C-alpha cells in the first residue's frame, strides 16, 4: 500500500468515528471531555456551532454517531458512548451562552434572502447568514418556528421550552419572520427583490392507504403526521380507547405513545414487515413497549370493517418475508386465516412524501424522480441559480441533524452566490493537531478509559407521564452519571501520530498495544496486508495507516479500528516516533464565527 497521507484532514477525521458519522460533524469527543470536566457552557457552544440545536438534538437526534462509536466495538457486548444524551446534559446545565454567540452587525450587507419554511434547515441557514449582515426573511405556515420539531415531535420527548429557547437564539438575531403565512406561489416569491431563495418546507404530506372502507371511515382514520400536528397545536385532545397504529417507523412510535396519553388504553402497533426490518430506532421502540404498547409483525392491512357507518375493526392478511439473493424483500401470503383487530381509531404512519404544489413548473426549477427538485448534491442549488433547497425538501424525509447539515452547506452556497463567486470554490474544514504530552507518563487527557457499562438515562414515573402529555419522560443524566458516562469515551480525536523517520523498529509499541493494533510487516496490497496483521483486521470502513518504508524495508501498519487511544504506544516509544495529538476538525461553515481558538484549546 502507499504511505498514508495524514495531512489530508479526512484521514484523522475518519478515525473520530462519531464525528465522521455526524452529518454536521460535531466534534463529539471534545465536548464529551468538557462535560467530564464540568464545563457545560463550553461544551454547549461547541455543539451549538456545529449542530445549532443541542438541547433539541440531545433529546431527539437519530444519533448516527452512536452505531459508529468505536466504544461499541472494542469488546463483545460493549455499547457505544451515550453521545446523544450527553449532549442534553450540557444543554441542561449550561450557564449564559447568549453572550458567546456571534454578534449581528447593525449595518446590513444589503443582501436579502428569503427562507421558505421555518424548520431546522431554514433556521440553520439564518443562523449562518445573519452574523454576516444578511437580511433573512422567513415564511412559515405554522404559528411558531421550528417546523416538524414543533408540529411532530411530541412534548413528552421534547419540551416546548427547550425548543423555544433554541429557535429563539436564531429568531432573536433579527430574522424577519412571518408565521401563519402559507407560501402559495414561487413565481410571486421570485418577483420580489430577494437575492436568493432557500426552500426548507420539509416533506409535509403523510401517505394514505387506499383499501376497502377507507373512504367511508374517514372520521376515525387519521394521517399520522397531520394528527400529531393537530395534537401539538391543541386541536385534538382525545382519542378512542382502542387504537391501531399502522406503520413501523418513528412516526408510528410517536403516534402510539401520544395515543396512550390521550385516552388510548389498548394501543397497538401493526407492521407489514418483520420486526427486524422495522424502521423505528431501537430506543424509540423500547420506549413504546415500556408503555404497554404491543407490536405485531407481518400483518398487511386489507380492509377497514364497518358497522353502522363506523370502523369497528381492521382486517389483516398474515405474510412472510422472502428475500432474493440480492437481499430484495417480498412479502408473500403466509396462508393463514385473516386476522381481525377491533378498534375505535386508526392512525396511519406509513410514510411521508414531498409536495411542492406551490412551485410552478414553468419557472426554471426542474423536478425529477419522486417529484423531488433536481439539485447539485454539494451546493444544494436548484436548476434556477438563485433558488436553493435543504432539509427534507431536498432529498426526501430524513432527520433534524441532516437538515442542519444541509443548512450549513446551503448557507455557504448562498453566501458565495450573493458575492458573485464560484459555488464550487468552497471553504475547507479547519484542522488543528496539538500534542497532548505533558510528561513521560502524563497526557493532558485521561487515557485510563473507564471500564463501566453504558449508563441508562433515568425515566420519570410512568404513572405520571402517561397522564400528562407535556411531561418529559426522560429525566436526563445528573452530573455524576454524566461524568461517569463521559469517562467511557475513548478520546478518538487524540490521534496516534507516527513519524517514521524517528522509528528504530524496537517493537515496543507493537508489544505494548493492548489491542494488537500495530504490526511491522513487509508491505503488500491491502487484502494481503490485512491478512498478515497481528490481529483480525476486517473493518474495511476504517482505513489502515501505513508508514513509509522503515530502515529494514518493512512498514509500520496501524489498524485504527479498535484503537483505545490509550497512548501506551507513545509512552513506550523510546524515540518519540509516536505522539498523541489532539485533532480538532471544524466542518466548513460560512464565516459566521469569529475565528478564535475553540474554548477547549484555550484552556488546555
Amino acid at each position, binding site marked *: 500500500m502507499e504511505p498514508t497521507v495524514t495531512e489530508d484532514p479526512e484521514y484523522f477525521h475518519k478515525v473520530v468515528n462519531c464525528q465522521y458519522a455526524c452529518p454536521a460533524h460535531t466534534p463529539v469527543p471534545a465536548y464529551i471531555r468538557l462535560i467530564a470536566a464540568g464545563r457545560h457552557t463550553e461544551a454547549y457552544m461547541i455543539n451549538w456551532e456545529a449542530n445549532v440545536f443541542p438541547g433539541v438534538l440531545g433529546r431527539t437526534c437519530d444519533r448516527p454517531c452512536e452505531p459508529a462509536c468505536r466504544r461499541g*466495538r*472494542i*469488546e*463483545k457486548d460493549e455499547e457505544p458512548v451515550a453521545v446523544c444524551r450527553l449532549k442534553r446534559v450540557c444543554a441542561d446545565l449550561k450557564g449564559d451562552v447568549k453572550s458567546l454567540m456571534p454578534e449581528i452587525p447593525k449595518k446590513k450587507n444589503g443582501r436579502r434572502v428569503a427562507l421558505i419554511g421555518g424548520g431546522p434547515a431554514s433556521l440553520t441557514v439564518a443562523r449562518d447568514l445573519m452574523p454576516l449582515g444578511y437580511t433573512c426573511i422567513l415564511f412559515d405556515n405554522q404559528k411558531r418556528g421550528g417546523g416538524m420539531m414543533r408540529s411532530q415531535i411530541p412534548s413528552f420527548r421534547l419540551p416546548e421550552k427547550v425548543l423555544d429557547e433554541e429557535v429563539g437564539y436564531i429568531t432573536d438575531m433579527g430574522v424577519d419572520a412571518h408565521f401563519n403565512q402559507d407560501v402559495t406561489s414561487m413565481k410571486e416569491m421570485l418577483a420580489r427583490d430577494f437575492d436568493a431563495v432557500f426552500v426548507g418546507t420539509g416533506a409535509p404530506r403523510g401517505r394514505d392507504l387506499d383499501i376497502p372502507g377507507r373512504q367511508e371511515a374517514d372520521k376515525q382514520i387519521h394521517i399520522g403526521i397531520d394528527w400529531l400536528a393537530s395534537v401539538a397545536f391543541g386541536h385534538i385532545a382525545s382519542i378512542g380507547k382502542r387504537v391501531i397504529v399502522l406503520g413501523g417507523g418513528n412516526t408510528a412510535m410517536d403516534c402510539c405513545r401520544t395515543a396512550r396519553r390521550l385516552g388510548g388504553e389498548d394501543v397497538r402497533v401493526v407492521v407489514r414487515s418483520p420486526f427486524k426490518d422495522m424502521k423505528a430506532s431501537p430506543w424509540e421502540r423500547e420506549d413504546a413497549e415500556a408503555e404497554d404498547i404491543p407490536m405485531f409483525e407481518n400483518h398487511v392491512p386489507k380492509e377497514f370493517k364497518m358497522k353502522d357507518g363506523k370502523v369497528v375493526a381492521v382486517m389483516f392478511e398474515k405474510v412472510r418475508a422472502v428475500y432474493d439473493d440480492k437481499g430484495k424483500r417480498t412479502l408473500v401470503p403466509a396462508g393463514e386465516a385473516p386476522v381481525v383487530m377491533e378498534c375505535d381509531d386508526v392512525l396511519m404512519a406509513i410514510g411521508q412524501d414531498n409536495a411542492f404544489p406551490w412551485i410552478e413548473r414553468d419557472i426554471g426549477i426542474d423536478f425529477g424522480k419522486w417529484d423531488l427538485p433536481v439539485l447539485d448534491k454539494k451546493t444544494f442549488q436548484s436548476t434556477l441559480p438563485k433558488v436553493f433547497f435543504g432539509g427534507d425538501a431536498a432529498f426526501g424525509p430524513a432527520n433534524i441533524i441532516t437538515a442542519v447539515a444541509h443548512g450549513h452547506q446551503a448557507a455557504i452556497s448562498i453566501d458565495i452566490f450573493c458575492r458573485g463567486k464560484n459555488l464550487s470554490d468552497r471553504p475547507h474544514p479547519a484542522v488543528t493537531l496539538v500534542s497532548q504530552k505533558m510528561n513521560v*507518563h*502524563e*497526557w493532558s487527557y485521561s*487515557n*485510563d*478509559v473507564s*471500564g463501566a457499562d453504558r449508563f441508562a438515562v433515568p425515566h420519570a414515573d410512568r404513572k405520571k407521564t402517561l397522564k400528562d402529555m407535556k411531561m418529559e419522560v426522560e429525566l436526563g443524566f445528573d452530573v455524576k452519571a454524566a461524568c461517569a458516562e463521559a469517562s467511557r469515551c475513548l478520546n478518538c480525536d487524540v490521534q496516534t501520530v507516527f513519524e517514521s523517520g524517528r522509528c*528504530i*523498529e*524496537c*517493537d*515496543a509499541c507493537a*508489544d*505494548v498495544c*493492548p*489491542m*494488537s*493494533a500495530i504490526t511491522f510487516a513487509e508491505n503488500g496490497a491491502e487484502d494481503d496486508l490485512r491478512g498478515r496483521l497481528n*490481529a*483480525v483486521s476486517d473493518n474495511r470502513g476504517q482505513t489502515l495507516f501505513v508508514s513509509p518504508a522503515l*530502515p*529494514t524495508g518493512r512498514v509500520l501498519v496501524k489498524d485504527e479500528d*479498535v484503537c*483505545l487511544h*490509550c*497512548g*501506551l504506544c507513545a*509512552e*513506550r*516509544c*523510546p*524515540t518519540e516516533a509516536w505522539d498523541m495529538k489532539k485533532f480538532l476538525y471544524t466542518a466548513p461553515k460560512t464565516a459566521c464565527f469569529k475565528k478564535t481558538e475553540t474554548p477547549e484549546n484555550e484552556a488546555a
Partner: protein
Amino acid sequence: MSYIIPRFRHPCTVPNDIGYTRQDYEGALSTLCAGCGHDSISAALVQACYEMSVAPHLVAKLSGIGCSSKTPAYFLRQSHGFNSVHGRMPSVATGAYLANRDLTYLGVSGDGDTASIGLGQFAHVMRRNLNMLYIIENNGCYGLTKGQDSATADVGSKTKHGQANVFSPIDPAGLALNIGATFVARSFSGDKAQLVPLIKAGLHHPGFALIDVISPCVTFNNIPASTKSYTYTREHMTAADVVDFVPAAAKYGADGAIDVKMPDGATVKLRRLPDHHDPRNRAAAAAAVLAAQERGEVLTGLIYIDTGRPDLHAMLETTETPLRALDEKALCPGARALDAVNRNAR
C-alpha cells in the same frame, strides 16, 4: 500519571486449547525503559506460552538480578516465580527442579548475570543438563547499574558513556556447545518470527535449552559504536535456518525440511539455509559459531540440538514422583536406611 494497563483486548482474541486468552499470560506493567529489547522478549514469551497452551500454574520463572532478571514480573502473572541473587539463578533452579520435576522451568538472565558474575553457575547447570529453558537477554552491558561493559561486550564496542571494550568477549552459545548443552540457539529481540518458535522448541526440549537473545539496551548501549544495538544486530545478523515449531497434534506435509522430533511428539522443523551446518552435528555447530565470529556475523537460529541425552533426574536416577510429593516417611526412611547407605559407601 498513566501507569495503566487497559482492561480491553482485541475483540477477536480467542481462548487457547485450555481456555486461556493471551491476556491470561501477561504480567504487571513493565517498568523497563521504553524501547528496551527485554520487553519484546517478554511479549514473545507471552505469545509462545499462549499459543502452546502452557498451563500458567505449572511454570516456574527463575531469575537473577538485572533489568533482564526483573522481567519475569511482566509476563505469566499466574506462574511461580523466584527472583534470586545476582548470578545464582542456576543453583536456585537446580534446587527447585530436584524438588519438583513436574514443573516447566523458565530461567531469565542477563549477560552480566550469566557471563560475568554468574559464569560458574551457568557452566555447571549446563553440565547437569537441567531440564529448563534458559534465556539470556544479552545487551552487552549491565543495564540496571547504568551500562558498564559486561563479559559479552565485543572488543572495540562502546556503550553510551564508556570507552571501547578491550577484553575478549564470552560467546554464551560457543561456551554452551563446549560444555555440553543439548539445545543451543541464538536470536534477536526484534525478530519474533524466529524467537517465538525457538521459545516453543526450547520449552519442549527434554534437557537444558539455551537461547542467547540479543536484546538492545536502548538507554545505555544503542549507539552507533555498539555491537549490541538494534541497527548493528540487524545489519550483521545471519540466520542458520528458518525455524518452525509444530505441536504434537498438528499435521504437516513433508517439504524438505529437517524434522527434529521431541519426545512428547512435537516437531521442530528447520529449513536449512544454503551453506549452513546440520544442527544435530555438534562439531559442525561449533565450527559455524566460530566461523560466524570470524566474519563478524551474529549467527542466529537453532545452532545445536540433541534430544537424546539424559537430563539431571535421569542421570541421578531419582524417583518419577516429584520429591515434594513424597511424604515424610518416604523422604526420611530412618536410621536403619541411613545405615544401609553408609555401609554401601565404606
